[in-house]
């Protein structure tokens, strides 16, 4: 009789005692709070899946057997201000309903003023209204294009400077004509004679298609050519012999090179 009376009083007062135990100071929103060694009578419980309406995020970090019940370590934080029962965010693993008498009350408070529940809108940019960010991007791209063009032009100019030198703008035939004219008139100095000889070598090596041969081989072949041989033989004896004599038939020898168009 006495025992049944005691159990009756205990079952009535226990939920109130538990609820009192969980009465805490209101916690700020978003701050994690840990609750350790909390016994929930009955079969094992688990955290309910989160939904859009969830005002609390609750996790069970550890579970320990505790007689016929289980002891739990919780971790939770609030998403909305107000008082909530943690039991509402738990469910039995065996899908049986939770005891209505169980209460684990927690309170959360917001740091914001009650009327300020949304963040401030972003500040307006400092750019003048007529310049938009898109315009700035276009301007930047145009600037870099101009710089790129200048770099390319500069590099091309430099390459032109260091490129192979173009020895003569005139063709060998065109260069020959004034030299031959001067030679026929007897007005060719040593430099002119040297230039005439060299230009004739280039002229003949191009004419005989010997530009791919080594210069030494090309000259040997030119001197073996029936048309070129007499000319070079006479030029050599005129320009290089110890007792040079101007060829008597110089005019005839050089006449072909005075023609308006030389083959």
């Amino acid at each position, binding site marked *: 009789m006495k025992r049944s009376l005691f159990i009756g009083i205990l079952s009535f007062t226990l939920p109130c005692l538990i609820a009192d135990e969980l009465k805490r100071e209101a916690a700020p929103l978003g701050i994690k709070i840990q609750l350790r060694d909390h016994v929930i009578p009955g079969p094992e419980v688990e955290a309910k899946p989160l939904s859009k309406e969830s005002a609390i995020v609750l996790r069970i970090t550890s579970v320990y057997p505790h007689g016929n019940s289980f002891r739990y370590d919780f971790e939770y934080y609030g998403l909305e201000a107000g008082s909530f029962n943690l039991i509402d965010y738990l469910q039995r693993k065996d899908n049986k309903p939770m005891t209505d008498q169980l209460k684990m009350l927690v309170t959360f408070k917001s740091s914001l003023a009650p009327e300020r529940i949304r963040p401030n809108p972003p500040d307006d940019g400092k750019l003048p209204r007529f310049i938009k960010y898109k315009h700035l991007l276009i301007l930047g791209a145009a600037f870099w294009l101009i710089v790129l063009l200048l770099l390319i032009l500069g590099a091309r100019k430099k390459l032109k400077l260091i490129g192979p030198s173009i020895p003569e703008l005139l063709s060998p035939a065109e260069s020959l004509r004034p030299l031959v004219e001067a030679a026929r008139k007897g007005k060719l100095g040593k430099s002119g004679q040297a230039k005439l000889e060299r230009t004739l070598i*280039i002229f003949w090596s191009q004419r005989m298609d010997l530009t791919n041969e080594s210069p030494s081989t090309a000259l040997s072949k030119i001197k073996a050519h029936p048309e070129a041989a007499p000319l070079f033989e006479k030029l050599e004896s005129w320009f290089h012999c110890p007792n040079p004599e101007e060829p008597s038939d110089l005019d005839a020898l050089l006449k072909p090179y005075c023609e308006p168009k030389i083959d």
Partner: protein
Amino acid sequence: MVSYNNHASYIQAIREQVSNVVVGQDEVVERLLIALFTSGHILLQGMPGLAKTLLVNALGKAIHLEFSRIQFTIDLLPSDILGSEILDQASGQFTTHKGPVFTNLLLADEINRAAPKVQGALLEAMQERKVTIGDNTYRLPVPFLVIATQNPIEQSGTFELPEAQLDRFMLCHRLKYPTPVEEEEILTRNLNLGIQKEGGGAVANTEFDIVSDDPVGEPNDLISVIDAVHKIHVSGVFIKHVVELISRTRDHSHIELGASPRAGIALIKGARARALIHGRDYAIPEDLFALAEDVLLHRMRLNYEALAEGMSTIDVLEDILKTMG
């Protein structure tokens, strides 16, 4: 001994005697003769086994010149070449021991394998034609011709000759492999070298064993040829060609270091000797073109842009010669 009054026949006799031992390589023989007749020095660049030593040996014996060979190595000392003073323990006096440089024809084999101080000692002797050992200065024999060789491959462990020292060589000739016909002749000749029996043993003959010890002509013939080379006529037009060629090597956009005035002198000297070898008493542009590569290439250095474009000095020189209008 036969005395040759005619220079051409004397030169032809030398070439024939050398060709009895060395097949082909006519161009190299001509370059060696040019160096010898003009008191220049020659650097031969070529792969091993191209009969460089045999050629010099045969040439030395044909002209009746003393011949020495030095194999350049990393541990060679200047005194190993020039000579040194040695203390005679019996008399207590220093006696001078002259090195192998005291010869007429000196073959400096693989010159780039020796340390720079050894190269420098030899190159100084080449230029000054005298050597100082201790307190005494000795003149080198006349004629004095250095024929140095360089292997264009295996550059590890070598000391590349700097441009200033390369410039001391009048000619730098690049030896080519023999043609298939010449190669066949070399192999055929090698089959018939035979053996020599000596002191109860026998050994196979080498090409060196068949080099004739009989010189061609007399020592005066060489003097006469050297004298004749100095009388070869060089025209004003020819000098203009040389000046134009040299200045173009300096002004070319791909050249960092052009030919020196010494190169111009070498071109004219070489052209004179070549003219004599070819039976002329005057130099012509053909001599210039023939010798340009050997005289100028080792004196030219390409710039960075040309190297970046993968060009070689021979490309640039050919460009200069082909456009020298």
